[in-house]
């Protein structure tokens, strides 16, 4: 009888130890949750290219100062393949959203980047891409 109790205790101990190890490894696991590295890099590279070539100013301000969505649409769609969705939003630091354009955009599978321009009252260009 004592032998059976010892065996049961040992089994419970093993179960508790194994469960502890199994649960504990989740504490140290790096989780790639809601982030798509490639999409973020692509969005950042597009914005850097726009900043270097002056396209960012045409997109964010245009000639009128209220941005140029037509130009922005052409600029982004020449760089992205049709299977990549996008959401491009230009925000004024004083007036809020200036305009938003999108194509096949899925927020659940997206990532992106922002570029801040401080000409005049300032603009934020937010570019999010999705698969």
């Amino acid at each position: 009888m004592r032998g059976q109790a010892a065996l049961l205790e040992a089994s419970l101990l093993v179960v508790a130890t194994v469960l502890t190890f199994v649960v504990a490894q989740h504490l140290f696991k790096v989780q790639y949750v809601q982030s798509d590295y490639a999409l973020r890099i692509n969005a950042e590279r597009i914005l850097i290219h726009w900043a270097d070539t002056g396209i960012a100013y045409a997109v964010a301000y245009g000639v009128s100062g209220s941005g140029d969505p037509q130009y922005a649409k052409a600029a982004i769609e020449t760089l992205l393949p049709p299977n990549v969705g996008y959401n491009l939003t230009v925000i004024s630091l004083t007036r809020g959203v200036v305009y938003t354009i999108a194509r096949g955009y899925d927020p659940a599978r997206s990532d992106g980047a922002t570029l801040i321009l401080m000409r005049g009252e300032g603009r934020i260009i937010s570019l999010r891409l999705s698969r």
Partner: protein
Amino acid sequence: MRGQVLIGVAALILTITLLLLVALPKRTIGPTAAIENYTIIKREVEHILRNAAEEAAYATANALETTLTTQDQASELQDLYIDYFNVVFTDKAGAYAALRGVFCKLKTLEVEVENVGNYVYITSIYAVAACDNNVLAFINSAANVRVEFKNLGAFGGVKAAVTLYSSQKEILLITYAAALYNVTGEKAYRFPIMGAFDPRESIWYFNVSGLHYIQLAIPTEYCMMRTPTYYVAIAAASVGEGAATVVVAKPSRKLCGT
């Protein structure tokens, strides 16, 4: 009894581990886009410098009243531009810090002004900004200006040939504005000629050669003066490329009529 204690300890450890798993925030670290993040911030700071250089030119041209009554206009123009550059940059850097959490300071600002007989203009701007995240950005721009005065009969004519450079590259698209300041009795009064000294209300001018001819007409009431008391001020700047100049020209003769 010893076995029960061991089970108790194991169960306690398991419980604590479970609680930690629930209580600790999920780690969503993943790989970071370190190079691109750095490049974006560097570009943004560089563009703050560029925008400050351009907007300071318009602000300087807008506030020339105070400098036109002095003798050393080259030095006054230089000081005024430096003051406005500092003001504009500080304003933009403050807003940027609030958005990105990156604090930048203007580390170096060198502005050169050339005096060519009857006109003075800003020939070069060199500025460096340093930020607390080790980002260092700079702009290096130059301007080449030649001003001619012409008698156009009913009107006086001013033709300024302006070429702006950013990092030794000619700027094709510029914006500009011009005004006339008449100095009487130690006070200067402004008369707008083209656009306004505000980047939003300036004239856009694209030329594939990079050489821009800014041609202005001086109204009859001023061009008839045999000893002109007026100055022509021109502000020209690139759009987001960090090149800008302010030209202050004073004719020495009557510019219209016979």
